[in-house]
């Protein structure tokens, strides 16, 4: 291996939602693809398995070096010490494993709407056919709600809301009757609820989606896109292979391949006509900055944004005695507050937010811990959790010059490459948005007959806000002007024609909605455009 260099049509680096779908679409279009993943394959049911008696498995888990009693892909395998945080406590999730963070996502699959694409160089109509393909492949469940900026898709039957979530819906209906603009809909997730020929296992509602779905019901790159790509016979998967360098030929202005380090520490090379980077918004930017490529605009690592939020918890006293004996469902959130400020923006902040709402009593994820102890404590514990509904805000941080990724001048990773540095500084607009969320959610809870159990109260500074580790986007944004953007509308580098980007780095703007479905739709669209260029003999 050390001396041999293999040649492919396309190298895809990163096997998460975007890289997985690129491998799938490109191999099906006839391309020979190398999929390079820094992590290893995690085996469902063996490397992760949240089912069963925790006590029986405790000794073996702890002996194996895990520190938490319950198996979880995220807790057990996510990277640590892989970035440097600057400012308002940025967090950054990275799972080096075949399938990437699609292994530990919640499955929330929301289309961006025509209003969201107004800030993009491509329209909703251009992406819509790929949303539809993605929903079919991913088997998204949901309810058709007819909302203009959260378009309906191809859905399997929705999962019902739990009772406290229905209370929130009631609150929303009451506020709508008073003229307020908002909607409350069942959550949409890439988890099958209907048996289909060739489809994945139907969900059995164990509630462990984010710990890793060991029955392979929830969509992941590793259980759907990559196996289907392998079936074509045109995919070669390189696991535990870390891309250390991008090979670039300045005379032809082309990338020619990559150098990678395998699990034994040996370096090898791969050559290809085209390189697709899909390493995550932070890691893709890091590799471009390290290699000094595709950055004539100076925009690589800029325009960084993720979702942030606060949580408000309500209690509905008449639900304290309800039956919660099987309340797991599809993890925690079964419902979504949306449709806020789509039509008329709030003058106090830019953009808008959505609120993921959940309820239920799952012993592995209790939301309410009552004060006290002793006799009666368990009864209060059950009642308080049975009656609670939690509202978790998700808004996009304002894009400013203060929020970006660059390279740490000193600290290096285990391959000797500079660590990425994440700079996060919330703006006044972000704080104003969070204040509006707290006021709105407290009002919904009260008008539905509940009381506010937990609230951040008055938000004075950024300390109250929590960033989403996994929703970073924008570091190689799409645009039509090479001076102000990194890739064109085909996700192709303005600077280097045979370099493409298949992850959420390319987002031109970030709405309140979860990014993965759009990442997948865009990577699929990119792959189609790329495949037709390959067929024409470009590159």
């Amino acid at each position, binding site marked *: 291996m050390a001396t041999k260099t293999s040649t492919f049509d396309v190298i895809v680096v990163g096997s998460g939602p975007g890289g997985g779908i690129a491998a799938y679409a490109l191999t099906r279009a006839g391309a020979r693809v190398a999929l390079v993943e820094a992590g290893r394959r995690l085996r469902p049911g063996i490397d992760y398995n949240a*089912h069963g008696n925790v*006590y*029986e498995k405790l000794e073996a888990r702890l002996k194996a070096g895990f*520190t938490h009693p319950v198996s979880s892909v995220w807790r057990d395998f996510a990277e640590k010490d892989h970035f440097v945080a600057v400012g308002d406590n940025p967090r950054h999730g990275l799972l080096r494993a075949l399938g990437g963070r699609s292994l530990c996502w919640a499955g929330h699959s929301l289309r961006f709407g025509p209003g969201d694409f107004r800030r993009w160089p491509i329209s909703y109509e251009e992406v819509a056919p790929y949303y539809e393909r993605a929903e079919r492949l991913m088997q998204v469940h949901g309810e058709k709600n007819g909302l203009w900026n959260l378009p309906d898709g191809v859905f399997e039957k929705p999962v019902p809301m739990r009772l406290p979530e229905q209370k929130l819906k009631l609150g929303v209906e009451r506020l709508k009757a008073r003229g307020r603009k908002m909607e409350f809909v069942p959550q949409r997730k890439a988890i099958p609820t209907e048996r289909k020929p060739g489809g994945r296992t139907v969900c059995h509602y*164990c509630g462990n989606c984010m710990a890793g779905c060991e029955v392979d019901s929830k969509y992941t790159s590793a259980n759907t896109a990559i196996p289907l790509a392998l079936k074509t016979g045109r995919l070669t998967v390189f696991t535990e292979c870390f891309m250390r360098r991008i090979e670039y030929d300045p005379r032809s202005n082309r990338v020619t391949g990559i150098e990678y380090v395998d699990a034994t520490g040996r370096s090898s090379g791969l050559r290809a006509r085209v390189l697709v980077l899909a390493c995550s918004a932070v890691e893709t930017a890091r590799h471009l900055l390290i290699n000094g490529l595709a950055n004539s605009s100076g925009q690589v690592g800029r325009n960084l944004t993720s979702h942030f939020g606060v949580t408000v918890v309500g209690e509905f006293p008449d639900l304290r005695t309800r039956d919660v004996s099987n309340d797991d469902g599809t993890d925690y959130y079964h419902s979504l507050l949306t449709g806020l400020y789509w039509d008329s923006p709030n003058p106090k902040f830019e953009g808008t937010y959505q609120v993921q709402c959940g309820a239920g009593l799952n*012993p592995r994820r209790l939301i309410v*811990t009552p004060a006290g102890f002793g006799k009666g404590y*368990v009864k209060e514990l059950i009642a308080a959790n049975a009656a609670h509904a939690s509202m978790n805000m998700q808004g996009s941080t304002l894009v400013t010059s203060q929020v970006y990724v660059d390279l740490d001048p000193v600290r290096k990773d285990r391959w000797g490459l500079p660590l990425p540095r994440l700079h996060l500084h919330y703006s006044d607009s972000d704080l104003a948005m969070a204040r509006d969320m707290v006021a709105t959610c407290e009002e919904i809870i009260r008008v539905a007959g509940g009381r506010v159990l937990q609230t951040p109260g008055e938000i004075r500074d950024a300390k109250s806000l929590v960033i989403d580790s996994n929703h970073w986007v924008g570091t190689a944004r799409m645009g039509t002007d090479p001076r102000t953007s990194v890739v064109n509308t085909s996700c192709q580098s303005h600077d280097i024609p045979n370099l493409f980007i298949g992850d959420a780095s390319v987002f031109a703007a970030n709405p309140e909605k979860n990014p993965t479905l759009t990442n997948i739709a865009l990577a699929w669209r990119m792959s189609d455009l790329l495949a037709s260029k390959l067929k024409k003999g470009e590159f």
Partner: protein
Amino acid sequence: MKRRELFPILGAGIAWGQPSQTPRFFTAEQYRTVVAVADTLLPDDGDIPGAVRAGAPWFIDTTLFYVPTARQAWLEGLEAVDGEAQREYGKKFAELSEAERIAVMERFSQREDQPQTAGEHFFVLARRQVLEAWLLSEAGQRQGLRYRGNTAVEEFPPAD
């Protein structure tokens, strides 16, 4: 609950297939305090099995045996609990009556939102870990919460 009644209850913990009830991280004497603390925080309550019957002391001892993170906090906490018992009643915590044990824990739980003293910090830690151990046990989940989840169901039951 009297002290001599603890031992049959400890025996129930063995039902989980653990190799031995002999503690591996705690000394035998410390473990008696752990059992008494767990039993005070989450006692048997009608037909709801408490933390000791669920096997929580074994769970905590086993976790600390392998994972060092909370070791120091537990050892300091047990000292605080036994120190308080000694000062107030001239006995070890495990030798106190049920009412005396509750009184000690009540003093430690006064400021659980903003714990200041070693005993107050220990109350927050011990309740969190005893509760977690109870919630993850079969007895806690199935008999305590009457929870049927984390098992296969054909349909998610719509609420009405």
